[in-house]
């Protein structure tokens, strides 16, 4: 009676041909209000090697916690909330955006400020989903997702201040599979 969702297939190694036109690493134009932040990181495989043919996409609310999507109250003017970056020859990606606001969660709860992340790559027959949270801890205690993740794995969802110490600059690495490098595997979500 109902239809079944089409099967997923890998994005493959030649994703650039179809997706480069929409690369969006500067996510917030000059008129968008909010605290400017930068997020960068690397994607690693189970050998600890950088994944040089991944595509990372971001989806986030504006500084007031509003999404720009269809049927939503609307975000700050000109802020689409979408980012897309292919990883480079060292597996690296980088975005400039604004700090998202808290958004409603299940029941009466609020979700801590977060950015939804989608990862595509050769070798991923389905995309992976994770989230970026922020190290100030604001709202973490009441966040339904963070509470659902085993405490010892939660740190993989929290961006860290860049070692450079530049304010508003965060590092968020994505580890597809735990390997000999010892980097803990990123928590991925079944949404």
């Amino acid at each position, binding site marked *: 009676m109902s239809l079944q969702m089409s099967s997923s297939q890998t994005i*493959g190694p*030649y994703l650039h*041909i179809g997706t480069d036109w929409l690369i969006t690493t500067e996510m917030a134009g000059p008129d968008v209000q909010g605290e400017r932040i930068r997020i960068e990181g690397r994607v690693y495989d189970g050998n600890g090697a950088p994944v040089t043919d991944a595509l990372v996409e971001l*989806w986030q609310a504006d500084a007031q916690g509003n999404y720009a999507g269809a049927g939503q109250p609307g975000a700050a003017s000109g802020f689409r909330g979408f980012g897309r970056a292919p990883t480079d020859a060292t597996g690296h990606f980088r975005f400039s955006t604004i700090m998202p606001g808290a958004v409603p969660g299940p029941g009466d709860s609020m979700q801590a400020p977060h950015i939804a992340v989608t990862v595509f790559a050769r070798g*991923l027959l389905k995309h992976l989903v994770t989230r970026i949270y922020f190290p100030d801890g604001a709202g973490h205690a009441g966040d339904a997702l963070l509470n659902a993740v085993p405490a010892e*794995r939660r740190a993989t969802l929290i961006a860290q201040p860049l070692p450079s110490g530049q304010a508003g600059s965060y590092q968020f690495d994505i580890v597809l599979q*735990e390997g000999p490098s010892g980097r803990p*595997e990123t928590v991925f979500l*079944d*949404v």
Partner: protein
Amino acid sequence: MANQAQYRRPFHSTQPDYLYPPYGSTVKRAPSKPLIILPQTLTEVSGPVFGHEDVKAGDNDLTHQHAGEPIGERIVVSGRVLDENGRPVKHSLVEIWQANAAGRYPHKNDNHDAPIDPNFTGGGRTMTDEHGHYQFLTIKPGAYPWRNHFNAWRPAHIHFSLFGNAFAQRLVTQMYFPGDPLLPYDPMFTSIPDERARNRLISTFDWETTNPEYALGYRFDIILRGRDATPMEK
């Protein structure tokens, strides 16, 4: 109040697992730990909106992106994007990319000894209309070898990337062609456990969109996740 009507999870065995050793690249890229199940929130049921400021008329014609016409068999690829409830997925972005007629991508990582076509890049995009309909004019891609295993060949295919209307509907897939003898040997195709689901990625030849004395028509409908009618109980 903030509980969201949930997008249904895919029907059993219609989706590949992350780890599928016959496709070698999955072995070191598949997560080793189970995914954490997340009830969808506003974050997942909303999604980016694209429009005609992003996609221009003509972006769905891959045969007129250069000075001359590409070599190969012209084809019209069209269909509808629907959700599992059969409702059209309107005004949503569809991106495609593919090899040229000789099975070659103009990409630094493609070393296949087949000619580059200076008149074919192989990337296009369009927005679905209010009926969920989309259409591309392109050329039929060629099969090409890859190094997954001895004498490995990818069947002819077109990559599709769809945004739907929500983060939870995002889908990247591939469209195949009817009667392709390579399909049973392709580990990407066979990674889908359910045979009927697998076969739904094969387009069908379509007289209705075949353009007399110009191009053959292939039809490929894509189904994105559908949403339950009522919000999930807490």
